[in-house]
């Protein structure tokens, strides 16, 4: 049985309120926050990027775990804001973590589901016996064009998962993926800010792919939503995950704990995984957790997880961590995002 041995996360301490962004553009902050379901978002500092944040989340994932770092057979780095257009961040990360050198390093991109695709591939390598452990990392310092709707939600964060087949805190009961060519959100080579298809990002994109991947997994395993203690979906804003959960038949109470987007914004590849981190803080042993990511372009990776007894030994305080925050103003935000 493959699964997750340990996890780590990093949320930068700075926040900017939806209202403070809205103020710049002459909009009513309260209305915007309400319509998006996002009140504030996490912002990483000028000297941080997806690599430095990955180092933090990976350090947490590996700290105190009885796995020799040299047994980690793969390091997969998923991001849509990697430090280089050409040059792996996975090797830089592995080097700083002290993972030596007989390992496979791979950088992945697929909008917000780069890392979850990595999880599926890691699962295959572990299941086949080729590797005992793979470190899968999601990290983004997501930028949006000033004055664009995405400006309120694009945020920073990182989650790292050490996957293996023994000593698990989460077992992967099953996993599946649904993909199609759907251009809802993209960024061309050399262009600074992403573009998107407005409302096209909704029904034919986010909703269609998550519903398809999820439904397929329910059917294959003969499960219905009420079998799950928690459900986690990718969170581009505070509304979509609630709506897709409802469409699939989940109750609001099952999704509630995962909705970190309201306070943290959308950290792209780390978004759904951060929701999972939030859930793991409160999850009990022997519970089923449903998880579906979404990446524009488009695809959705769905997982059925089962928690183990071991989870209680390895869970990390999350809610308390989020209380360590400092608010910044708009010019500082632009400076931190290298826009100014």
């Amino acid at each position, binding site marked *: 049985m493959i699964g997750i041995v340990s996890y780590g996360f990093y949320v930068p301490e*700075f926040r900017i309120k939806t209202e403070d962004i809205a103020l710049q553009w002459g909009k009513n902050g309260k209305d915007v926050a309400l319509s998006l379901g996002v009140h504030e978002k996490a912002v990483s*500092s*000028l*000297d941080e*990027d997806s690599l430095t944040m990955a*180092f933090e989340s990976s350090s947490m994932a590996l700290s105190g775990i009885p796995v020799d770092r040299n047994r980690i057979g793969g390091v997969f780095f998923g991001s849509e804001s990697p430090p280089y257009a050409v040059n792996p961040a996975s090797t*830089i990360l592995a*080097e*700083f973590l002290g993972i030596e050198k007989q390992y496979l390093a791979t950088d992945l991109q697929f909008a917000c589901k780069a890392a979850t695709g990595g999880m599926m591939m890691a699962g295959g390598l572990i299941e086949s016996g080729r590797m005992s452990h793979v470190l899968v990392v999601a990290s983004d310092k997501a930028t949006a064009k000033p004055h664009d709707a995405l400006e309120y939600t694009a945020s920073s964060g990182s989650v790292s998962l050490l996957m293996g087949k023994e000593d698990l805190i989460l077992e992967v009961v099953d996993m599946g993926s649904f993909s199609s060519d759907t251009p809802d959100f993209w960024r061309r080579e050399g262009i600074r800010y992403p573009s998107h298809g407005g409302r096209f990002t909704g029904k034919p994109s986010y909703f269609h792919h998550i519903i398809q991947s999820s439904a397929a997994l329910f059917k294959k395993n003969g499960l219905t939503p009420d079998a799950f203690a928690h459900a986690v979906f990718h969170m581009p804003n505070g509304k979509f995950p609630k709506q897709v959960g409802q469409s699939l038949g989940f109750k609001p109470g099952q999704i509630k704990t995962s909705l970190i987007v309201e306070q943290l914004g959308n950290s792209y590849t780390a978004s759904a995984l951060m929701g999972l981190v939030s859930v793991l803080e409160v999850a009990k042993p022997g519970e089923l957790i449903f998880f579906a990511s979404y990446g524009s372009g488009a695809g959705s990776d769905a997982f059925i997880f089962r928690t183990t007894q071991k989870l209680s030994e390895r869970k990390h305080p999350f809610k308390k961590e989020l209380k360590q925050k400092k608010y910044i103003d708009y010019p500082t935000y632009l400076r931190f995002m290298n826009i100014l």
Partner: protein
Amino acid sequence: MSTSPVKIWRRQKEIRNLLNRKGKIISWTYIYAPPIDFKKNAPYPVVLVEFKKGERAFGQLVSTQINDIKIGIRVKSVLRKVRDVLSDDVIAYGLKFERI
């Protein structure tokens, strides 16, 4: 001025062992007149830290107001981008410190 990727590579091997270590501040200052490669980040505090095992390291202190910096404060070393490089240079990652 372009930075040699080889120098960055050598340097990164050295700092690997200094990351995620705890120590305390033995002296500090706040830089208002920076060198070229640090203009973007200025003004910024720089500290000299002594780790538990006795080694010492210089580095910037992140996210701390000048009034909150004192000799004796405990810190942890973290990975950050340390220096502005040209847009087609290799990125310089290095050591900074964070209050704990």
